[in-house]
């Protein structure tokens, strides 16, 4: 990668951040994350005595004698679950406009007139979008991890890994945003399709139960194919929770198969973009 390529990539990433700032996406996430961090800093009081929590005070209500490890892991788990559900929906919703906005008439022609390959434009924008969300997730998770660590003396790496998994899942879902955005150039369609995949994920995660309920072999095959082909948001959420709670991960298939889905869909997005007339 030469300096010109790096310069172009950085310009595209910077432009995505600039647009995210202007659309208040970045500041919206940053504000919510900061509010949550301040909550843990000032509202929650934890007194630890000899490895166990003596008291935990929240809005004046005090609990006694909790296992410190358990409390920290539960709090981490709650945040990880929030990020994987509501946080993911918010991230997709906020990002849905950032990709199609590039294809607006009068803007795309100017980008394409520059000596930059089309795939580079798309990947630069994609990377910028992932980094916008990653910056917010890492900010929240790292700050909460630090606060709990300082207050309780418990430092668990699982929570940090779970945030990486959350960003990874977002990056996979963003490939859908890219492909649908290139095809239809509409933020609304992009949001609907990506949300559809997210909503169907917990249903498909019950694939074995579903297969038992279905009578036709064709239906069972469709469910099986859909489960293996689509990104496994629900399963990755479960893995993230296991990471936080320190439980062993027995199956990494949802991680690599979701990644494979992302690579294929992003490749399809790049292919369609390269062939399209503007």
């Amino acid at each position, binding site marked *: 990668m030469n*300096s*010109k390529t790096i*310069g*172009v990539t*950085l*310009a*595209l990433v*910077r*432009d995505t951040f*600039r*647009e995210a*700032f*202007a*659309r208040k996406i970045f500041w919206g996430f940053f504000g919510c994350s900061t509010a949550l961090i301040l909550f843990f800093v000032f509202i929650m009081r934890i007194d630890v005595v000899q490895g166990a929590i003596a008291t935990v005070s929240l809005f004046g209500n005090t609990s006694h004698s909790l296992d410190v490890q358990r409390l920290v892991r539960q709090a981490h788990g709650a945040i990880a679950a929030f990020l994987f559900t509501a946080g993911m929906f918010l991230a997709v919703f906020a990002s849905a406009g950032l990709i199609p906005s590039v294809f*607006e*008439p*009068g*803007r*795309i*022609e*100017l*980008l*394409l*007139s*520059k*000596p*930059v*390959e089309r795939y580079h434009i798309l990947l630069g924008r994609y990377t910028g979008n992932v980094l916008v969300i990653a910056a917010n997730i890492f900010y929240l998770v790292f700050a909460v991890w630090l606060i709990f660590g300082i207050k309780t003396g418990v430092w668990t790496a699982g929570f940090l890994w779970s945030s990486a998994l959350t960003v990874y899942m977002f990056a996979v879902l963003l490939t859908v945003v890219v492909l649908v955005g290139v095809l239809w150039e509409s933020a609304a369609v992009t949001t609907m399709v990506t949300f559809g995949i997210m909503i169907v994920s917990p249903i498909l995660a019950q694939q074995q139960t579903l297969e038992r309920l279905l009578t036709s072999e064709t239906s069972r095959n469709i469910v099986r194919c859909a489960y293996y082909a689509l990104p496994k948001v629900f399963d990755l959420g479960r893995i993230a929770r296991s990471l936080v709670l320190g439980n062993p991960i027995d199956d990494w298939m949802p991680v690599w198969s979701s990644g494979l889905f992302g690579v294929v869909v992003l490749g399809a997005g790049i292919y369609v973009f390269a*062939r399209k*007339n*503007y």
Partner: protein
Amino acid sequence: MSFAIETEGLIKIFRSRWSGKEVRAVDGISLRVEPGATFGLLGPNGAGKTTFVKMLLSCAHPTAGRAMVFGRDSREAEARRPIGYLPENHRFPTYMTGRSMLDFYGALSGMDGVTRRKRIPELLATVGLAEWGDMRLGKYSKGMLQRVGLAQALMHAPTLLILDEPSDGVDPIGRRQIRDILHALEQQGVTIFLNSHLLAEVELFCHDVAIIHRGRVALEGKVKDLTAGSGYRVEAEHVPERVQQELRAKAMAVAQRNGNVEFLFGSRDEANLAVDLLRAEHCEIESVARTSSTLEDVFVKAIHEQ
């Protein structure tokens, strides 16, 4: 020698996804633009001008034929490096300031940070926006956007400038300013390709033109050749009625103008004979000139003839 722009049998057919109906937006255009030329592309709405330009920039892919920019296939990214482009109906991101916009597009053109920082204030001053560089583009007027758009196209010192309706929405002073900038670039040897429906603007600035209609080249040539007429106009005063009658029989047209009589002859010989006769009759010759058409006349004729 490689041409600044060279197209061979360039065709673009748009097909409707559902009905399968075809539209031949560009139908076999072969054009050559020499380096350093000022070239105007003219045509009525829907003639295929913008599609042609988009194929030069690889925004649209040709169905057949090829387009070359300085000897490189326009589909190669490197072929676009010497090009500065100002699109029609551009939509610059409104969250950017004039300065950050120039910086962004400069970076995409492969300029390093130091050169960009040096070039931006120079260009903002050139287009008369030195004091507006830190203001968001959302606050710019149409004319200001057009000028900052031109600055964007000039950012990386291109050798080929493709401008789509550059003075659209610009007031007469701004228009003059843009023309001055383009003249200066012409002096530096920059090839300027102007896509415009403002015939007077093209006539004032371009030396070569092509008129396209229904996706084909209807007429191509040097502006001075295309607008040069074949007739001669002789204007005289104190022409006696008898002489007027005699010349009226030979002239293509006769007109009375402020007490003078103006005769239009189809050839130089006829004009010379008329001058001899008028002088022999002691008439005062006011002027003798070769007739010329405006580019508009040429344009209308070319469109109607095709």
